[in-house]
């Protein structure tokens, strides 16, 4: 009797949460399909995809996303590795620093960036290329909480210190240890950090807007101001992208586990 009750309530809450998340999305989806009067159609999507400005801004943001991911990995894997290896006692402090982007509003952060780096001696907003450097640096900071946590969790699942020492005593140097031992055993962790960071950059609005670069976020806002159906289509598409990223993370981490389980006893 008792388990039945628990099952009922568990079911109830799941359904409620499901409705809470998916009803609005369903509304948006439905709306995005009604550009043509009276029938459901993909017209809004066609319009969006046909807009050269959309393609350009999507391409720009995707490139920014990839660059951000690459530099984040190169920055955070060795950093977190070093913290785990030599400075365990600093970990709580670093953890607090990495969640600062959650605490400080992005807008405050962006103003700080511009004030600090647009003037001499940096003058990083002078040319589009220099501004892009500033953008990537900013994205790396915004992605830091996710990237750090993903890699940190990955490091906790392997005995970093002992593996390092084992490799060292076998004659490996630091580069060999990083690339043969640390990176391969962090594949899943790095990948999930990378995909979340990528999704974050794709959807980011404020940085692109204030640094006046042709990113996808500002474009979506602009479209939203002037049109009715396309923004809904865009929203659904960006949702889809995020879900694809999350799906990939699950897929990769699962296939990794499976490999272990199938191979393991």
């Amino acid at each position, binding site marked *: 009797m008792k388990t039945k009750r628990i099952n009922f309530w568990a079911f109830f809450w799941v359904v409620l949460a499901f409705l809470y998340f998916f009803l609005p999305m369903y509304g948006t989806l439905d709306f995005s399909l009604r550009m043509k009067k009276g029938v459901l159609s993909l017209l809004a999507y066609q319009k969006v995809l046909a807009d050269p400005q959309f393609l350009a801004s999507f391409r720009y943001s995707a490139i920014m996303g990839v660059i951000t991911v690459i530099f984040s990995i190169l920055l955070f894997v060795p950093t977190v590795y070093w913290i785990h290896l030599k400075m365990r006692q600093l970990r709580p402090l670093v953890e607090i620093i990495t969640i600062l982007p959650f605490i400080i509003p992005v807008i405050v952060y962006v103003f700080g960036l511009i004030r600090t780096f647009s003037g001499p001696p940096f003058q990083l907003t002078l040319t589009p290329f220099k501004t892009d450097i500033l953008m990537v640096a900013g994205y790396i900071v915004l992605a830091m909480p996710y990237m750090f946590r993903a890699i940190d969790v990955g490091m906790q699942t*392997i*005995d970093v210190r*002992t*593996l390092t*020492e*084992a*490799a*060292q*005593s*076998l*004659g*490996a*140097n630091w580069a*060999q240890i990083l690339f*043969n*031992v640390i990176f*391969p*055993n962090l594949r899943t962790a790095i990948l999930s950090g990378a995909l979340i960071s990528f999704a974050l950059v794709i959807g980011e609005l404020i940085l692109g807007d204030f640094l006046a670069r042709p990113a996808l976020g500002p474009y979506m806002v602009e479209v939203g101001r002037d049109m009715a159906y396309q923004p809904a289509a865009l929203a659904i598409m960006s949702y889809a992208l995020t879900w694809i990223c999350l799906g990939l993370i699950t897929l990769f981490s699962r296939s990794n586990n499976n490999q*272990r389980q199938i*191979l*393991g*006893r």
Partner: protein
Amino acid sequence: MSYLELSNVKKSFGTTIAVDDFNLSIAQGEFVSFLGPSGCGKTTTLRMVAGFELPTSGQISLQDKNLTYLPPNKRNVGMVFQSYALFPNMTVADNIGYGLKVTGKPKKETNARIKEMLGLIHMEEQHNKFPSQLSGGQQQRVALARALAIRPQVLLLDEPLSALDAKIRLELRLEIRRIQQQLGITTIYVTHDQEEALSLSDRIVVMSKGKMEQVGTPAQIYTSPETEFVANFVGQINLLPVKVVSPTQGKVKVGEQILQAGKFGHLNGNPIRLAVRPEELNHGFIEGANNLSGKVEAISYLGSIVRIRLDVEGNPISMDVFNERKLTIPSVGDDYQVTFPVEACWII
């Protein structure tokens, strides 16, 4: 002939002194164990030999070459860890060959060595498996093969069997000794298990609180412990508080029962104790030997051995006897007479 030499090695972490005044000279091919309770500095000493820790002072040299400040990847020292520390992303063969790969040995040589090592640990069939597919004992064998594959000058093992089941532990212990003898490799073995140390080693270094207590062969350590710590830590020991009766003859007494110490130094007024191992005691009375009478307090079966605990003048004394069928075991509360030879006891 000294091969590996540790001179005046000291290591402190902040205010804790982990290792102090460590002097040891190890011959080529020798199997030396560091034995002591947890926290006594065994691992730290081993890690200084491996190069993972820098000594605060002192020197470590191998074949008269100063190793002290050489980084671990330049030492050619093999290390086996308690937690196996196999690379999870590599197969057994790749794990074993890793040390040769990173130092740029030719592929042919590497493959031949992998094969040789797989034969040494009897795991030829498992070469393509990943560590997660192996049992603990198999993983540790692979770790041993991986450490040996680089043909190290010294092999270091830090409690390699502690994470394994009792049965596998015994099996692997014999295997470690076999491989060590077969290769004639100089080995340092860290353990807190006296049985491991006694059964494996050519020589044992007993450590306590960062210091060496005694260095000697297993027989020396067991039969002639020089300090109370060693006597207590290695094997079981009875320590009977006694009063001196005759300092020159080494006669002492517990209550009114007179005993003769086998070995005694200067006996002065300080409180002293007579040490004797439980297995030296026998039931009965022998004229000219040491004899004690007491009351049986407890009896415990330890498998092949039965331990009888007596109360002698208010002091606990243990006696070990083989669990033979013909044995007549006393009952708790019985009066009981025990005897032991004079040579079997000494003053601590």
